[in-house]
């Protein structure tokens, strides 16, 4: 079953199509790597999936239901997200930040402990977020996204600001989510090597259009020696993401 399905999804700002006729399909229990050069339309697409941006045209289906103003609240309860820079209140502690989401989502208190433990922030829970490093904020943002243990997790550049050890930790965590918590994960990243290591399926977007979508191993084909970067450059006409 496809957890996410879009048909002809389009977002226009003025005269420019940031996302153009995008057909996206994300299968249940998979890690979907969403890659594309800067400004390709990745974040805009993810924002539309979360109701943060209104599509100009096209349809979105989430969990097999059409995503519209009537079904929006019910559908979004099952989605956790971390979009662009980590969102948090700097004047509050990490725990207090999660408490706001917990109250809003009506979740048990133990979810905070569990989410903090997953992202390894238990010892920093009572520290004000303004004193967190960018990597810690990123992990707190992920804890917020995981708080309800949603069916679908949408992560936009989750490794931003993390050191190499943190990136590896995040990669292992994301990889473990489908099996451990029966989650489907969409990860957008400009780090192709990261996506190569953690995704089951990939969607490559360039100039707002989907250039390839399918299993990662099928993309590599029979030629294992070709890196994802080489294939990516070929598909996007040489536009580099980095």
């Amino acid at each position, binding site marked *: 079953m496809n957890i996410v399905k879009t048909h002809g999804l389009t977002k226009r700002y003025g005269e420019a199509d940031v996302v153009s006729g995008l057909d996206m399909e994300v299968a249940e229990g998979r890690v979907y790597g969403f890659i594309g050069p800067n400004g390709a339309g990745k974040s805009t697409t993810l924002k539309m999936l979360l109701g943060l941006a209104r599509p100009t045209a096209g349809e979105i289906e989430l969990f097999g239901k059409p995503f519209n103003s009537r079904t*929006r609240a019910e559908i979004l309860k099952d989605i956790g997200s971390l979009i662009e820079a980590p*969102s948090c*209140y700097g004047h509050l502690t990490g725990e207090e930040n999660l408490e*706001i989401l917990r109250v809003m989502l009506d979740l048990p208190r133990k979810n905070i402990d569990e989410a903090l433990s997953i992202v390894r922030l238990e010892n920093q829970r009572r520290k004000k977020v303004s004193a967190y490093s960018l990597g810690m904020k990123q992990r707190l943002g992920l804890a917020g996204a995981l708080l309800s243990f949603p069916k679908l997790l949408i992560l936009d550049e989750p490794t931003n600001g993390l050191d190499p050890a943190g990136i590896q930790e995040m990669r292992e965590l994301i990889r473990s989510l489908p099996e451990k918590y029966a989650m489907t994960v969409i990860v957008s990243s400009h780090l192709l090597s990261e996506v190569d290591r953690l995704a089951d399926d990939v969607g490559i977007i360039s100039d707002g259009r989907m250039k390839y979508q399918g299993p990662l191993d099928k993309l590599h084909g029979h030629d294992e020696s070709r890196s994802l970067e080489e294939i990516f450059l070929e598909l996007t006409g040489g536009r580099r993401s980095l």
Partner: protein
Amino acid sequence: MIKLLKCEYLKTRRRYIFLTLLAVTAMALVWTLNGRVTEDTRRLGWMIYLYQLPVLDSVIMPLMAMLAASRLWDIEHRGGMLRRLVPVSGRNELYDAKVIYGLSMLIPCLVIDWAGVIVFGFVNGFQGDFPLRLYLTRLLCALLPTVTIFLLQNALSMAFRNQAVPFAVGITGTFVGMFSMFLPRLPWLRRLTVWGGYGALSFVGMYGYTAETRWRDVFFTVDEPDPFAAIFLTLAALAAYSMGKRLFKLKEV
């Protein structure tokens, strides 16, 4: 809604917004009640304050409304938390929670200010019967422009990430409101601006005060509050609320 209001409370921890508003209210009260109570002021006390309160309200309340709205939205803009909150809660409900929470801090301050004058009057033995009906009318006449200004400032603080914009509007409006009371030849300035509402809805006139005779020959007139101004403010409040909510619905976060 209760959940969202609790969240608003949690978000504003360590920001001391209500405490700041209370401190401004206390300062305003000290400013209002400062001065020697004489035999004349004791005789005319209830009416003197009914006459003076709109002037004070026109300065203090718009600033407090601006402060409350700005602080409430600034934490969302700085934290980028709307990206996280909008998917888990409806935009309408989020906006309403901000409005209710802001007013729940602002209105008690207005009531404290109002009640402070009454307590002061009783403690200092103001003469004559306490004009309860006039004081209740006075409270409503202060409440209407305060709510309207807050709704306007709330919409501006939500729409602009840079809080200098709502601050500039608020400060300019406060000056317009205050000076409109001293410009009787420009009645439209009072009647057609939300900040002028305090003056437009003031219903007590004072005559006979001179530097020499001071309070000795003073007398007061009581009219009905201007119904046109009341209707204008009610419509402006509805417009500000609807506009803010609409903008919030369209806002990409």
